């Protein structure tokens, strides 16, 4: 009987929480967005998500084999990367492009840097940036949701297989450039909230993303600091612009519910590996992401800025960590 007795340093018990459980919670949090995408973009969405997840898992398995490391697919982090990458791709994306993106995310961005916990950039966002640079046309072809054909202007030549239309943010960009009226754009707010607009597979339905984000907050899978900081800084920026020039700037709620901001705030910027450790660092990181999103949306050439905002702040994370030393009780932080 004594042979079963083990010794180890204290503590001798732990919370019933594992990395696998954390990742599983993120997947559960993404379920509403995935369901919404299946409603709006039908089989195409399911297909892209499936391809991305499978290719991510296979790439990770191959990398573990090559590194002769124990197989860690069970931690589900590759599944999360696959889903987030898929949700941030346009529905009409060719499957070959999705495959290339998934391999890039896992092999180049994650495993070459040392695997889970060591990557500097968010794998899904870095892969998406790579795809945007490599397959510009495929990455900006926005299919009209299957449930609706709204009267949005066409800005892109339709490719052979899909009917396309402008995303709400592309339209708001036109307003900024004086090619459309801000009020006209705002009429799409309700559609953008529920998701009946053009856009990436998983970003269109702000309602579904909010639901999933709330689940993560309630489960305490993510801390509230980063999402709140993103929403606040983007919201304040948008509100200032709207108050100053309401005829060209769309309302702040349109900015919050349009595009990938909800997906970014709750699921991408909160990726723990590429965000700062300390609470103060998380506030700074989130505020930076929100600010950069709005800068790109309003002053930049792209209509949407979540991807680059997150990547830029990822690059700042080590610096933020260095500047935001925690203050020990009864002392001052050492800089």
């Amino acid at each position, binding site marked *: 009987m004594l042979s079963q007795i083990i010794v180890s340093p204290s503590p001798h018990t732990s919370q019933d929480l594992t*990395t696998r459980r954390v990742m599983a919670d993120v997947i559960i949090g993404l379920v509403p967005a995935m369901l919404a995408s299946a409603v709006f973009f039908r089989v195409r969405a399911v297909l892209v998500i499936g391809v991305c997840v499978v290719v991510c898992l296979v790439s990770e398995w191959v990398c573990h084999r090559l590194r002769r490391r124990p197989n860690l697919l069970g931690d589900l982090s590759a599944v999360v990367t696959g889903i987030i990458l898929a949700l941030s791709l346009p529905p009409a994306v060719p499957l070959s492009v999705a495959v290339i993106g998934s391999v890039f995310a896992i092999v180049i961005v994650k495993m070459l840097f040392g695997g889970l916990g060591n990557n500097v950039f968010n794998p899904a966002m870095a892969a998406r940036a790579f795809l945007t640079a490599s397959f510009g046309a495929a990455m900006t072809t926005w299919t009209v949701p299957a449930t609706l054909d709204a009267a949005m202007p066409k800005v892109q030549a339709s490719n052979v297989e899909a009917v396309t239309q402008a995303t709400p943010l592309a339209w708001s960009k036109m307003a900024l450039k004086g090619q459309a009226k801000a009020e006209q754009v705002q009429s799409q707010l309700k559609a953008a909230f529920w998701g009946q607009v053009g856009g990436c597979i998983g970003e269109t339905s702000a309602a579904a993303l909010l639901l999933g984000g709330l689940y993560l907050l309630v489960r305490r899978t993510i801390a509230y600091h980063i999402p709140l900081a993103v929403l606040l800084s983007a919201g304040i920026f948008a509100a200032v612009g709207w108050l100053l020039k309401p005829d060209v700037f769309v309302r702040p709620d349109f900015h919050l519910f349009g595009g990938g901001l909800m997906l970014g705030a709750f699921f991408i910027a909160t990726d723990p590996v590429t965000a700062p*450790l300390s609470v103060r660092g998380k506030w700074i990181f989130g505020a930076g992401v929100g600010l950069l999103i709005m800068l790109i949306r309003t002053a930049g050439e792209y209509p949407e800025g979540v991807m680059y905002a997150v990547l830029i702040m990822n690059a700042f994370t080590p610096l933020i960590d260095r500047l935001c030393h925690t203050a020990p009780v*009864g002392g001052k932080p050492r800089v």
Partner: protein
Amino acid sequence: MNFTVKKTFKGGIHPLENKHYTESCPIEPVPTPRQLVLPLVQHIGAPCKPLVQKKQAVTLGEPLGRSDAYVSAPIHSPVNGAVKDITLASHPVIGRTMAVYLEANAEDNLPQRPQPERFGEEFDPGSFTPEQICNAIQEAGLVGMGGAGFPTRVKVEPNPAMPKHTLVINGCECEPYITCDYRIMLEWTWQILAGVRLAARAAGCQTVRIGIEDNKPEAVKAFEQALSRCRREEDIQVVVVKTKYPQGGERQLIRAVLGKQVPTGGIPPQIGVCVLNVATCAAIAEAVVFRKPLTHRVVTVTGRAIARPGNYYVPIGMSVQDLLAHCGGLTERAAKVVLGGPMMGFAIADMSTPLTKTCGALTVLTREDVTEPQYVRQQTACIRCGRCLMVCPEGLNPTRIAHAVKHFRMDLAEQYYLSACIECGSCSYVCPAHIELSGYIKTGKLLKAREKKRLG
């Protein structure tokens, strides 16, 4: 609804309390075991030198070892018997140490019983001078009985360099499972109060605060009733604090009860505070009034894998196997035997390890209690979630310290305040990757001490 803010500190965790196994078990004496082992180090400070020789007869309460150093505490015999040997023995905290092996006489060793009924509301600490109290505390070999084992005289005695004004009594018992302090607070209320008043008199403190967690309303009631009947000059009050681990850490308790912060890496006397555990106070009362040395203490034997859990009045030096046998032995499912509670206790493999002055509990955990990842000890990569930073009661960065230690970067570890860690284990408890953060930090402290020794 009551919206008052509960007194507490920042950070911390809420592990399952599991106090139901033993909280209603009255303190019971145990039969004197035949053999006892008394390690010559049961405290922080200089080890004792043996005062007895092999085959020498000893009586109950006779000193077995002492040291001339100021920071030390003598060790006494808990039985009438003879010295069998003086040699190495397993020690729960420091591995192996010199110890006195005693064989108890078969006849004149009736089980010792606590005598709390000898204290009551008429007790007057004024009949003892502060010097008398300090000397009695030293002679009785008292050490902090909450776990650290710092010699009590050194804590209590007035120090002109750091004058003390407030005495904080620790009745939190924030560790899961353990109920020894809870039981003595209920059963020995007057004795503890006598010890508290003696300690306050010795230390020259006029203000006394007794901190008790809000999951022990019975103990709060017992003290409030006693205080309402007790005539006194000192200002003694019970302070109810939030139930949270590690509320009973002295730095956390001071923060909760007084709202003050002890400087990083500093000690409470720097801000004029002295913290004593309730069990230590009870021992002070016995030591000063009856000149009774510290030879017995209350130990909670608990856990799902123990047949007969309870709170026992145990002679110090009794081996773990004897105590387990008295409690019906281990069940099949036992996976870990821990001296102390599951958060800060020491897992032991050698069941002949003796119980020491600082050991308040013997917790026997099953594999389910330990949790599967903790049992297989598989550590995965840090995902930088920052949970350890959120729960650290000292506001440290456990993951950074642990990683610095892992790569033997002691300079970096110290930059992250390695030595300010109180080793509460909250970081390891919450880590989703099950990294033994607290284990790495403890290793780092050992490495640092070794390096310091090497450099002279």
